[in-house]
C-alpha cells in the first residue's frame, strides 16, 4: 500500500517560493488503478515524482508498505525503483538506435537481474505487448503506438508492483491510445500491479478505480469508481 501523509513540495527559496504540492494525503491499495487528474501545472507530475522517490517532499511523507520512503538511503530508493516500480512516459523515452530487446533489457540490467533470466523476461514482456516479432528490430523503425508498447514492455519487464504512467496516451492518436489503455488495464489485471496514471484524459481516468483530482497542488477531490463519492480532502 502507498500512503501519502501531508506531502508538500516547495520550489525556490525565501520570497520566491512556489508550492507544487500542498499537504497532499491519500492512500492507494495494492493492485488498484488510480488516475491523478488535473490541468497542466496543477502538480500531477510532481506528485508522481514524489510518490516514486524521484523527488523528495519538502514536508510530509510517502509511505510504501509501512516504510517511509524518505528514511531510505538514495541507493535503497534507487534499488526500490529498479525492483518494484515501472515507468511509462508520454514521450516514450526509448533508445532509437538500439533494438527493442536491448531497450527492454535496460531495467533488468539496472536491477541486476541474473543474466540467464534477462532475455526470457524481456521477451515475455515484448510478447505481452505484442512486439515479440520486433525484438531484433531497431526501435527507431517502430510506429508511435509500437514505441509506447515498447515503453510499456520495458516498464513491466521486471514485473514491478507499482506501474506509473505519465500521460501514456498523450502522444498517440485516439485509436492507438485506446489500444494502449486496454493494454495497461489488462496488465494491471494479469500482473496484479498497482497502476497509477497521470492524465488529462477523463475517459482514461474514469476507467480507474480511483480518481484523484489535483488543483494548484492540492487534492481537490477523490472519486471512487462506481461510487462517485465526492470526498473533499481539504
Amino acid at each position, binding site marked *: 500500500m502507498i500512503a501519502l501523509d501531508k506531502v508538500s513540495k516547495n520550489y525556490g527559496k525565501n520570497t520566491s517560493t512556489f508550492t507544487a504540492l500542498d499537504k497532499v494525503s491519500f492512500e492507494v491499495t495494492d493492485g488498484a488503478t488510480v488516475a491523478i487528474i488535473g490541468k497542466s501545472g496543477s502538480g500531477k507530475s510532481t506528485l508522481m515524482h514524489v510518490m516514486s522517490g524521484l523527488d523528495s517532499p519538502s514536508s510530509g511523507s510517502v509511505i510504501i508498505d509501512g516504510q517511509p520512503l524518505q528514511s531510505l538511503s538514495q541507493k535503497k530508493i534507487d534499488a526500490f525503483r*529498479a525492483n518494484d516500480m515501472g515507468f511509462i512516459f508520454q514521450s516514450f523515452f526509448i533508445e532509437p538506435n538500439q533494438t527493442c530487446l536491448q531497450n527492454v533489457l535496460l531495467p533488468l540490467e539496472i536491477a*541486476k537481474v541474473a543474466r540467464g533470466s534477462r532475455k526470457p523476461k524481456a521477451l515475455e514482456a515484448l510478447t505481452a505487448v505484442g512486439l515479440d516479432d520486433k525484438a531484433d528490430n531497431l526501435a527507431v523503425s517502430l510506429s508511435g503506438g509500437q514505441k509506447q508498447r515498447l515503453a510499456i514492455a520495458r516498464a513491466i519487464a521486471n514485473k514491478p508492483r507499482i506501474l506509473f504512467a505519465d500521460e501514456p496516451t498523450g502522444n498517440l492518436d485516439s485509436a492507438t491510445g485506446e489500444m494502449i489503455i486496454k493494454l495497461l488495464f489488462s496488465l494491471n489485471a494479469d500482473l496484479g500491479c498497482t497502476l497509477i496514471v497521470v492524465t488529462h484524459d477523463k475517459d482514461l481516468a474514469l476507467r480507474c478505480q480511483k480518481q484523484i483530482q489535483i488543483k494548484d497542488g492540492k487534492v481537490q477531490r477523490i472519486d471512487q469508481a462506481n461510487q462517485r463519492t465526492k470526498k473533499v480532502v481539504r
Partner: protein
Amino acid sequence: MYISDILRRSGRTLRSAKVRTLLTSLAIAVGTFSLTLTLAASNGAQQFVDQIITDNFDPAELIVASDDRVFGQGDTSTPREYDPSFGTIASPAGAATQIARLTGDDLERIEELDAVEQVRKNLTVNLQYITRPDQPKFVATISALNPYQSPELRAGNIPEPLNNRRLLLPEAYVASLGFSNPQDAVGETLALTVLPSGGKIQQELARSESYQVAIEDRLVTQDFTIAGVLAPPLTSQPGTELYLYAGTQDVSELNEITTRGTPNYQRYNAVFVRIAGGENTETLQAGQADIRELGYVAQSVQDTQDFLNQIIAVLQGIVAGFAFIAIIASVFGIINTMYISVLQRTREIGLMKALGMHSKDIGRLFRFEAAWIGFLGGAIGSLLAVGLGLAINPWLSETIELGEGNYLLLFDWVEIVGLILALVVISILAGWLPSRKAAKLDPIVALRTE
C-alpha cells in the same frame, strides 16, 4: 548495474554513434601512431647500438685514453695551447684539435696495476692500397683483430693465434681482387702497401712535381696470406665494414712504418684494458677507479653504451614530446565529445535514473565510453603504425644501411599494450568532468528536457 553491463552498454552506445566515435578516436590515433613509431625507432636504434657493442667489445675491457676528447668530452670552447708532441688532428666537426696520446710509459703504468689483466693496443692502419698480381689496386684499412670478436666467415678460418702475416679479408673484396669465390681466396697471397712516414723528406717530395713517382718509390709492400674470408657483418661500427683484420703484432709493424718520425709513433689515442674478473660490474668499476686515479680517462663499454642510448633517448624524447602534445590536443576532443554526448542524452540519463540506476553507475557509463574511445584510438593508431612499419622496415633499413637482419623499427607488444592502456586511463580522466555532469543531473529536470 554490473560493471560488465555498463561496459557493454557503453560500447553499444558508441556503436550507435559510429561517425562521432570514429572521428574522436582518429584524433587520438594520430598521436598514438606517432608515439608507436617513435618507440619502435628508439627500440631499433637501441638494439642496433647494443648489438654493435655486444658483437665488438669485451664487457670486461675498459677503453683508456689520456685525453677526454677521445670520448667527445672536454672543453672545446676555450683555446688549447699547442703541444708539438701531440700531433694535430681534425675533430669530428672538422676543426683542428690536439689529443694527448698514450705513450709506452703510460701503458707500462697501467699494466702494473693489480687489477689489470691485459693492455691491448687499438691499432688501425690506413693502407695505401691492397692488390694481387694482374688485379687493380684497392683502398683499404687494416685493424688488429679484437680477440673478443668472433666474426662470421664465408671461407677459411681464424688461426689461433692470428699472426705470421695472415689476415681476414672482407667478402666484398673477393670478386674485386679476381677470386671466383671466397674459398678460392683462402691461402692466396695479398700485397699490402703502406706509405712510410717520411718526416722532412716526405714534405720535400710533396713539393716536387714528380710527387706521385716519388711516392711510388717510397712505398713499402708486405705480403699477407688470406686465412679467412669474412661474411658481411650484421652489426659493426659504422665505417668498419670493409676492414681487413690481422694479428696485433703484424698491424703494429705496419703502424710503425706509417708513423715513424711523427708524433703518432708508438702513441695511441686509446687502448683496451682488460680488468681481471671485469665481467663483474663492481670489479670493473674498481679497476676503472684505479686507472682514473693514475690520471687517465677510462670508459667502460657500458658507459659508451649508456652514452649512445642517452643520445637516442633524448632524440626519442623530443619526437615523443610532439606526439604527446597531439594526444593532449585529442584529449580535449574527448572532453568535447563527451560533453555533447551528455547534453544529447539528457533525457536518456533521466530515464536511467528513473529506472533506478545509481548516479555512480551513470558516471561510470560515460567514463567507460571515454575509455572505449581511448582504446579505439590507441588500437587504430598503433595498428596502423605497426602495419606501416612492417611494410617499410626492409626498405628503411636498407636505405640507412643497417645491415642484413637489422631493422630500424622494432615493435614491442608490451610497449604497445602499455601505450593503449595509458590512453585508456588518459581518456577516462578526460571523461571525468562530463561524467560528473551526467551523474549529477537531476532526473526530473532531465526527463523534462525537450
